[in-house]
């Protein structure tokens, strides 16, 4: 204990010899010091927060027998250097294609709330309004949480909801890809495909844009 043990015993006056009244207390200061030292050490070294993770499924390569499925309401995002995003909706038509469609023009956007977020909210308006309706029901306790989650997934899988294809060139960073996936998740885009190879014609068009 943090206590100074006073020397006990007589005051010498009577001259009578008395047994020294010895304190049975132990000085605990060093122990307390050690306890707090250990405490500090463990507090500082222990890792509290386990890392967070995002699940990702990549598309399996197609074999010869399966035909690639048609994509309805597809939006293709091309990620490139300096955090730039280029996108186009629907199919890609190169200049002078056989079908005689006008050539695809790449639109530019960025990762700001006014850019990508706004764009996705507009493009995926159908799914967003449907999910908002469901959420309102869920808030009003007329729809159970599990049912809500299942129905929300169904909405994002609907053909009216958009499908996002993310393609990257050799300049894009990993952060861009993760931010993109994140934003799609926030905007209720259930069908997100990462890791599709960029077509040569797309790449050429992109190079022209970023030149």
């Amino acid at each position, binding site marked *: 204990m943090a*206590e100074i043990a*006073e020397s006990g015993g007589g005051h010498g006056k009577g001259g009578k010899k008395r047994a020294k009244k010895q304190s049975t207390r132990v000085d605990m200061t060093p122990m307390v010091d050690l306890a707090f030292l250990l405490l500090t050490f463990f507090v500082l070294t222990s890792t509290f927060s386990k890392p*967070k993770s995002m699940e990702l499924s990549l598309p399996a390569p197609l074999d010869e027998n399966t035909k690639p499925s048609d994509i309805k309401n597809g939006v293709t995002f091309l990620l490139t250097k300096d955090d730039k995003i280029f996108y186009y909706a629907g199919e890609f038509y190169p200049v002078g294609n056989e079908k005689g469609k006008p050539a695809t023009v790449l639109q530019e956007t960025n990762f700001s709330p006014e850019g990508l977020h706004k764009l996705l909210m507009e493009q995926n308006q159908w799914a967003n309004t449907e999910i908002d309706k469901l959420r309102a029901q869920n808030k009003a306790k007329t729809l159970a949480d599990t049912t809500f989650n299942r129905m929300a997934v169904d909405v994002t899988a609907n053909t009216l909801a958009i499908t996002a294809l993310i393609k990257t060139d050799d300049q894009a960073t990993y952060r861009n890809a993760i931010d993109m996936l994140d934003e799609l998740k926030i905007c209720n885009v259930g069908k997100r495909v990462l890791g599709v190879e960029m077509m040569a014609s797309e790449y050429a068009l992109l190079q022209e844009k970023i030149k």
Partner: protein
Amino acid sequence: MGKIKVAAHAPSIDMTPMVDLAFLLVTFFMLTASFRMAEPVIVDPPSSVSDKTLPENTVLITVDNIGRAFFGVGNGEARTNTLAKMSEKYGVKFNADQIKKFGGLSSFGVEIKDLPRYLDASEAERLRFQPQKGVPLDSVNNQLRDWINISATELNVIYMRNKDKAAELGQEFKGEKPRYAIKADGKAKYIYVKDVFKTFTDMKIYTFNLITSLEGGSSAPAAETKH
């Protein structure tokens, strides 16, 4: 007579409860602490709104900002077993001391032929170890593929054994199946990570956990905080 005596003792506070508390906390932290193992490289993963925690049983591939791949397994036993199999496959010999050190290694980014030398080095020396170009993963010499393959098998063996043991004792089994995790630096070029993805997809593994740091705010669309 009648003299007021001044107390001979110094004022004292009873510290017993404080000591009790201190030791209680020490015990708590000692038992719950999971030590952060020294990592060969510091990576800054990008932030995301995903709040899933990473499962325990993982094969972890770390990709740093210059594209080096580091390999690690989240289980010490699986780690040493993997090393034994890899040593056989590549004909690289490890002594008992090196195997023991490997059991405590969180991840590494050297070729297998340099691994014995890497293990002999002290922790401080490992940071400056040359050549530390990451585990090779090109198509000619894809050591990463073998590391992943063997360690996944080893993790599965341990998983099945624990499951059987739990079933034998009639307990509920809470363990999770081994998974694959990728922790990449936000500044790393996507193509580096793509090479790692390709190693996995070539092995018909299509689902991973990408390690991200949690972004502030909720996941609600209105609380979007990205810049």
